């Protein structure tokens, strides 16, 4: 009846030592899988556990499942394994509360490598991975952009049409003081002055939200934008092909010289894992580290806008970057912290497409909060979150609009009086 009857319930016999575990199937990195002490501290942090209240859909329960898979106690094609590996959002909120330092995100990648190998991979994920692996196809995304954004309307702040690769213009300079003089941000080191910074265009963002990259260039005229660049591989790593995910990250590392600047929190975390933390900066932490001085403010009906942040899970939980985006928003608008700002919005890469119902359940309370707080904008730092929150707000005809941080700051700058061509406010 029991797996391992450790204690004889009728007697006084002390528990014998457990049988040593077998060699395992090699699906998981043993070190990573052993880390979990099953304390359960992750349960309240997990969005899917909040939905079901069931152990199987908690991080601890999923690690128990992974261990059963690895030990051969559950069949490799067990339906609960398939369901739970897919139901997990991969938001990594559990990692931030784990006292034992379990790298859950890595374990999930390894789990999906097994569960979603070959024909078992959901076709939507397969199609997307094929699309982003071929740079030529990326341009086609522009054609389906409007459909994919779920609307015929343009985003409120991107008035100009998109080009496949923005030209290097020199918009009003807003560079701050010497980066070497600015304090380090919450998670990363300082940038060395004069180092080359390459903007990563992002395979999803390039197609769906080209205005974001353009806004980033307006904010950071010093950056370069190499035209030949592929996908970072996060999509592959999160959808059962971590090998290709790692290869794409390394390739992109070779294509983009110097520091890689990205406007996508998810890409930042994936690249940092493979290329090293020092190679990668997400936009908000980059602006923060270089002491960026925001310009202007965002107004609505003549008053200062009320704006909330939706954290990017991998930026927050993977890289620990939380302060910079909040401070940047607060500099150009009245910042409102929504109670669930740090929790997953349900976009979670391909999740919103693969599991739309669950994705919506995760998103809904957030939209309620945004409406209750009566914000004008929900600012995001990742294209997936932008698409998710934007669609959610539009579908309920909410007054609030979703916008990427880069565009939000650019919108504020457009409200400011012209800066003289030679002007750098920080140097005057």
């Amino acid at each position: 009846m029991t797996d391992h009857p450790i204690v004889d319930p009728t007697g006084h016999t002390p528990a014998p030592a457990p049988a040593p575990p077998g060699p395992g199937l090699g699906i998981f990195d043993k070190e990573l899988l052993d880390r979990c002490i099953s304390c359960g501290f992750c349960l309240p942090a997990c969005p899917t556990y909040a939905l079901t209240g069931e152990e199987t859909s908690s991080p601890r329960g999923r690690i128990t499942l992974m261990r059963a898979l690895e030990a051969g106690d559950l069949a490799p094609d067990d339906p609960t394994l398939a369901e739970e590996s897919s139901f997990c959002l991969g938001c990594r909120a559990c990692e931030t509360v784990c006292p034992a330092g379990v790298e859950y995100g890595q374990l999930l990648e390894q789990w999906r490598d097994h569960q979603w190998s070959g024909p078992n991979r959901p076709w939507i994920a397969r199609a997307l991975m094929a699309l982003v692996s071929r740079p030529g196809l990326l341009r086609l995304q522009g054609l389906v952009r409007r459909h994919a954004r779920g609307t015929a309307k343009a985003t409120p702040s991107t008035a100009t049409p998109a080009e496949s690769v923005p030209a290097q213009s020199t918009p009003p300079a807003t560079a701050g003081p010497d980066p070497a003089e600015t304090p380090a941000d919450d998670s990363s080191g300082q940038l060395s002055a004069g180092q080359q910074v390459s903007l990563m265009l992002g395979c999803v963002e390039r197609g769906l939200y080209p205005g974001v990259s353009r806004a980033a260039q307006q904010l950071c005229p010093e950056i370069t934008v190499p035209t030949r660049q592929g996908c970072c591989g996060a999509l592959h790593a999160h959808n059962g092909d971590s090998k290709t995910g790692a290869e794409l990250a390394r390739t992109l590392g070779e294509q983009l010289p110097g520091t890689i600047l990205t406007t996508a929190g998810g890409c930042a975390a994936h690249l940092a894992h493979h290329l090293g933390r020092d190679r990668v900066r997400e936009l908000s932490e980059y602006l923060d580290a270089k002491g960026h001085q925001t310009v202007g403010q965002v107004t609505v009906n003549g008053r200062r806008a009320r704006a909330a942040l939706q954290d990017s899970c991998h930026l927050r939980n993977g890289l620990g970057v939380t302060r910079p985006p909040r401070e940047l928003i607060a500099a150009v608008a009245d910042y409102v912290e929504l109670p669930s700002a740090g929790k997953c919005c349900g976009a979670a890469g391909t999740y919103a497409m693969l599991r739309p119902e669950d994705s919506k359940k995760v998103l809904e309370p957030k939209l309620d909060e945004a409406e209750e707080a009566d914000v004008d904008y929900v600012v995001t730092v990742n294209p997936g979150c932008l698409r998710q929150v934007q669609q959610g707000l539009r579908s309920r005809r909410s007054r609030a609009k979703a916008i990427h941080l880069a565009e939000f700051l650019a919108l504020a700058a457009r409200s400011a009086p012209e800066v003289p061509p030679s002007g750098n406010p920080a140097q005057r």
Partner: protein
Amino acid sequence: MPAGTDLARDLAAIVGDGHVRVDEGALAAYARDATPLFTARPQAVVLPASTEEVAAVLRYATARGIPVVPRGAGSNLCAGTVPLEGGIVLVLTRLDKLLEISPEELLARAQTGVTTAALADAAAAKRLLYAPDPGSRTVSTVGGNVATCAGGLRGLKYGVTRNYVLGLEAVLPTGEIIRTGGRLWKDVAGYDLTRLLTGSEGTLAVITEATVALLPAPQDTGTGVAYFDSLADASRAVAAVIAAGIVPATLEFLDRKCITAVEEYAGLGLRGDAGALLIFGDDGSPATVSGNLARIQEVCAQTGALEVTLAENVARADALLAARRCSLPALSRLGSLTILEDATVPRHRMAEMVDRIDEIADRYGLRIATFGHAGDGNLHPTCVLDPDDADGAGRAHEAFAEIFAAAIAFDGTITGEHGVGAAKLPYLTDRLGEDQMALLRRIKRAFDPAGILNPGKLGS
């Protein structure tokens, strides 16, 4: 016992289709709790939504002799919720309504599945304090806390869960729903079943609702740390503080091995030459807090502290408390098979006991570091092992048998706050004696004639 499909069908008729799990994955996930080395799969997992559904499940199980193991969040550390004899795991997390917080009556009423932190936060929002604060409070449930009589960091000044339970709603294994106690501080009508069920570890009845006492929230809190050459010196300081008429809200200690592990892990700048770190704190009016902290500082200095620091603000206090919070993470990095125990001795024998633990650990070639609650003598000797070291687990088992025997010899106990469960049942007779063990079994039979509730644990 009915076959799996029949069992699933029968249970679904009670709780609804979506709330019964019999798939192998779910059975594997509910085969364990937070206790290492104990695993046993149930035949079914049931998640009822009401007291009536709980009663129906229990009536069904009693009629067929099916074991039922009640479970909250599964954060317990004594294998108290492992279904050793299979059967049904009865998960109570869907009974999650906070029913009331009454500032006038200074009490709260909550369904069993509400997390302790949710209760404490709701009370705090009305400037009230729910005093029991087990380390697992963000995870663990009110029902689970009552069932294990959970402790926490404030035991000396504020007591433990049993000191706050006024009344319970519980379901007997035979299906009757009883309400013990109520909204009264004074009530001697009958045996104190509220206290009997508190700490009964799911072996007598299934707790479905609790009424608990609240206190006015203290206005202010303060924290400080002191380093000592040895734990014996720290113990003398603790005795002197209490003799001086101060009962601090917090008195936590780390032994030398914990200090080293925490420093290697977190680099907090702890003193490497200290044999013990004492974290003290108090709460109350600002004048009381600052007065008591100054006095504790003075007493520590007089009893030979190497260094005493008071936190000047909340952020600094958090930094000081980080050393205590980091203890388990730091130790678990040294070996992910982490056996966390809670042998408890009278406060004045704490230093002797930790010396004894060190001696036993050395003899068995084990890494056992000790931290814990200096105010109430509740020690957490923590053994860290490589999970593949089967021989190490065996040695740890023998070492802990000696540690529990030593605790009893020092007039202490085998568990201060984690519970007996399956993990410490083998040592319970040494603590209670044959006569009390027999009485426990007779009590168990009176509540649970069919012996279905959490078999193989207390009362078995």
